[in-house]
């Protein structure tokens, strides 16, 4: 149980978690109706659980790389992104105007009206 082994395992676990998260979101993008999504999500979970007990670091690395390639192949072309997040429709839509700008009301009417 050397430190480098543990560090590699921790990095792999983090990659697996992030991959699971993105795959789950992608599943929700493809299968919009909830009952279909639950079935697909269980299937995804089964796939992750089946490889849970692998111990060898290189095998794990290879499996993660394969899974990431599969994820990239299956990515939805128009994913649902929350509107105000980067990539969404409201992102930087109405930025706050820079300070020091004043609106002049009644332009041209100051003098003789």
């Amino acid at each position: 149980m050397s430190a480098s082994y543990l560090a590699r395992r921790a990095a792999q676990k983090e990659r697996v978690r992030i991959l699971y998260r993105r795959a789950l979101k992608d599943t929700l993008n493809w299968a919009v109706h909830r009952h279909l999504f639950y079935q697909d999500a269980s299937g995804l979970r089964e796939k992750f659980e089946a490889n849970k007990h692998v111990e060898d670091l290189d095998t794990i690395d290879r499996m993660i790389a394969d899974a990431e390639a599969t994820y990239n192949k299956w990515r939805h072309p128009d994913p649902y992104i929350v509107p105000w997040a980067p990539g969404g429709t409201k992102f930087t839509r109405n930025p706050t105007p820079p300070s020091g700008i004043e609106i002049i009301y009644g332009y041209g009417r100051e003098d003789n009206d």
Partner: protein
Amino acid sequence: MALRAAILRHIRVPARTLALDGSRMQAWNLFNSIRSMSSHDDHIDKAEVIERVLSVVKSFPKVDPSKVTPDVHFQKDLGLDSLDNVEIVMAIEEEFKLEIPDKEADKIDSCKLAIEYVYNHPMVG
């Protein structure tokens, strides 16, 4: 959120006994205050955040609802897996209509962190 609070505040008619003249009509103007539709200072209550986060965690099928408190750690106290952790964070994202970046979502490990993150997020719905 502010719009809903503003409308409720005006619709909720206070119970008051009618005086004999009964002519005190409340001029119910939704636009009484100039900024009734602005959400500038209307951030969500911490109590509401806690209640919603706990209800999300309790409705997770692998969790025992009686053990859920605001201080619970998902993996240590509730005995969940790291993949279950990911699922709970996704459920919280869906509940509050947030988008949590991957690195931040990885760090949310317990109810306390989740509540803090949600409460401090400016775009909580």
